[in-house]
């Protein structure tokens, strides 16, 4: 920096201090108004039913002071870490090293995931958590096709998860079909429902599309609850068959896998099998999505997200393009649902609430829309982080929300914010997220 630079910097830092102080004061004032009734006065029913109340102004003052201090702290952190105008001087060698490290994340993560059952063989908790994370990775990758690539905001993704789960549960319990036959059927049925949802929402955009997909998710759940004769209503479906390794059950009996292999039976075998099953399904989702992106249909999805009018001018049938995006995403959701049913052995409508849709959508948005690695990392952070904060009890959601707010401040376009081109002549440059559109529904 040249010599005259410090002077304006000092002047602006003086201004900044006043600005930060003012901003924090406003935050504290808002907190005072909000908390004065929530914390300042405590009411309870007295012994004879009359209203008893007492004040807690000490706690109130503490909370307001906390907001004031925290607000200053956050603002200072933002100044220090956020988008600053000065250029950061990082040696080129370090930058290339970082780029290499970034490229190595995906393979390393995959190798680690494959080895998880070997490393944590004795820790049932970690294996179960791994299965849960992988289920959400798969759901995230599935929804990524609809939201990340085609730019259609879908708030009812859990509907397809439910369709897949109930397809497998009902086909298996009523007709005794095996998991491996039901899996594609569940995918096809979910895709069919994806198309059914797609038709009425084709003309809708943005907020309207989001509302209708949200309603669709609720409709499916309510139908499941009320159609007692088929789905068992709120009681759910129980006794769903466990998956078999191509016909060989993982049971302690004589015809079980352990007996066939001549090893001692352990219930962990089934968990490890489930782990690799969902890993395989998730990798299939990933592989298909990566392939699709490089095919005309995938490019049309991304073009649709960028500019729908231009797509129509180029002779692209936007109707079928949107429907295929819905169907593909729904199909993967259906696969994940079938896996969920076979893993749990019991399903009920309670597993398919809006919260699941919101969680999967949060994973996609947090990961960086359209990025496969980003979605995987986000699922790991969200589900893993959720478990990590379990010890904090009732503050868990608070800490979690705080972490998400921080992330959105520093990485507003998600963990992996750039887009990789699907085809290139010489070099594949990552495209900055500033240029990539989010789609309008």
């Amino acid at each position, binding site marked *: 920096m040249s010599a005259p630079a410090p002077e304006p910097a000092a002047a602006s830092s003086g201004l900044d201090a006043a600005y930060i102080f003012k901003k924090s004061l406003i935050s504290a004032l808002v907190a005072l108004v909000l908390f004065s009734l929530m914390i300042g006065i405590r009411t309870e029913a007295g012994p004879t039913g009359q209203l008893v109340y007492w004040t807690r102004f000490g706690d109130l003052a503490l909370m307001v002071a906390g907001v004031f201090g925290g607000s200053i702290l956050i603002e200072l952190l933002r100044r220090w870490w956020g988008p600053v105008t000065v250029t950061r001087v990082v040696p080129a060698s370090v930058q290339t090293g970082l780029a290499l490290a970034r490229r190595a994340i995906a393979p390393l993560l995959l190798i680690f995931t494959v080895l998880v059952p070997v490393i944590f063989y004795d820790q049932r908790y970690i294996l179960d958590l791994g299965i849960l994370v992988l289920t959400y990775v798969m759901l995230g990758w599935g929804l990524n096709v609809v939201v990340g690539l085609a730019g259609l905001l879908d708030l009812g993704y859990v509907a397809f998860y439910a369709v897949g789960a109930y397809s497998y549960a009902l086909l298996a319990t009523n007709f005794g079909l095996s998991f491996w036959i039901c899996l594609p059927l569940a995918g096809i049925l979910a895709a069919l429902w994806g198309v059914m949802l797609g038709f009425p929402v084709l003309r809708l955009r943005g907020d309207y599309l989001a509302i209708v997909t949200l309603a669709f998710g609720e409709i499916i759940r309510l139908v499941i609850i009320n159609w007692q004769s088929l789905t068992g209503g709120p009681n759910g479906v129980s006794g769903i068959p466990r998956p078999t390794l191509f016909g060989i059950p993982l049971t302690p009996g004589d015809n079980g896998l352990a007996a066939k292999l001549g090893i001692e039976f352990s219930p962990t075998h089934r968990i490890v099998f489930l782990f690799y099953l969902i890993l395989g399904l998730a990798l299939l989702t990933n592989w*298909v999505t990566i*392939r*699709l992106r490089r*095919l*005309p*249909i995938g*490019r*049309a999805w*991304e*073009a649709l997200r*960028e*500019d729908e*009018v*231009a*797509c*129509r*001018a*180029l*002779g*692209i*049938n*936007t109707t079928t393009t949107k429907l*295929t995006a819905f169907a593909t995403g729904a199909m993967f959701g259906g696969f994940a649902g079938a896996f969920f049913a076979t893993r749990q052995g019991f399903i009920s409508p309670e597993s398919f609430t809006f919260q699941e849709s919101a969680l999967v959508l949060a994973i996609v948005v947090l990961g960086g829309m359209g990025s496969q690695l980003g979605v995987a990392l986000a699922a790991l952070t969200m589900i893993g982080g959720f478990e990590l904060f379990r010890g904090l009890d009732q503050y868990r959601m608070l800490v979690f929300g705080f972490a998400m707010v921080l992330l959105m401040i520093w990485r507003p376009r998600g963990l992996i914010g750039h*887009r990789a*081109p*699907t*085809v*290139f*002549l*010489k*070099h*594949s*440059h990552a*495209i*900055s997220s500033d*240029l*990539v*559109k989010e789609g309008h529904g």
Partner: protein
Amino acid sequence: MSSDSILSVDRLTMRFGGIIAVNDLSFAAERRKITALIGPNGAGKTTVFNCITGFYRASSGTMRLTHDSGKQIQLERLNDFRISKQAKVARTFQNIRLFPGMTALENLMVAQHNALMLASGLTFLGLIGAPSWRSAENRAIDQARLWLDRIGLLERADDAAGNLPYGDQRRLEIARAMCTEPALLCLDEPAAGLNTRESAALSELLFSIRADHGASILLIEHDMSVVMEISDHVVVMDYGMKIAEGSPQDVRDDPKVIAAYLGADEQEAIAVMESGT
């Protein structure tokens, strides 16, 4: 009307509520010629374009497109993407509509969507990586490379379209429209916002499109020097009606045209006169 017209618009009318944007307009665009549609601001030129390219449904009137094979298509009966897919009419937009987050090459690949969809066996052959799909994809990349070379953007093929300079974006949009292999190319103010050098390059590009690809061009333009230089036939509109038609020279000397421009905007009228000297 000439028998060898690629597009003949007959009594086209477009009403928006009580406003008549295009009133009883008839004209023809000749095959392998450049036809310009000019007129003051608000004359209804872009509305005509939107009717031809299926973005608006015309209130009345017919638009007949005749392909080289002799096949005739009534454009008013098609809509939306079918105009581009079946009638082979491509268009560009007044405010550039590229896919900004995709590379220049990807933009040109998206334009070849319909051909590639068939080649990829509606995605299924492509998913398993069939050899026929691979060769079709390579041909599409070669086609895109050819166009990138023609518009001088081969070096920037892998850059995001949104990062290109304005003039390059204009030319890329024309190349993208040409990648759909159109019979009729409709350009909405292709020279808007270009400097002298860039609009000279644009004229050259349009000439070469006409000469090498046998495409007919219909364009809306404000830049009179471009219109006078490249167009074979000029149609002048004002208040939704045709007020003059003919060769650039005839139109330039037409008192009605000069009056329309003078009445509308002094600067444009001066531009009309000056471009002739």
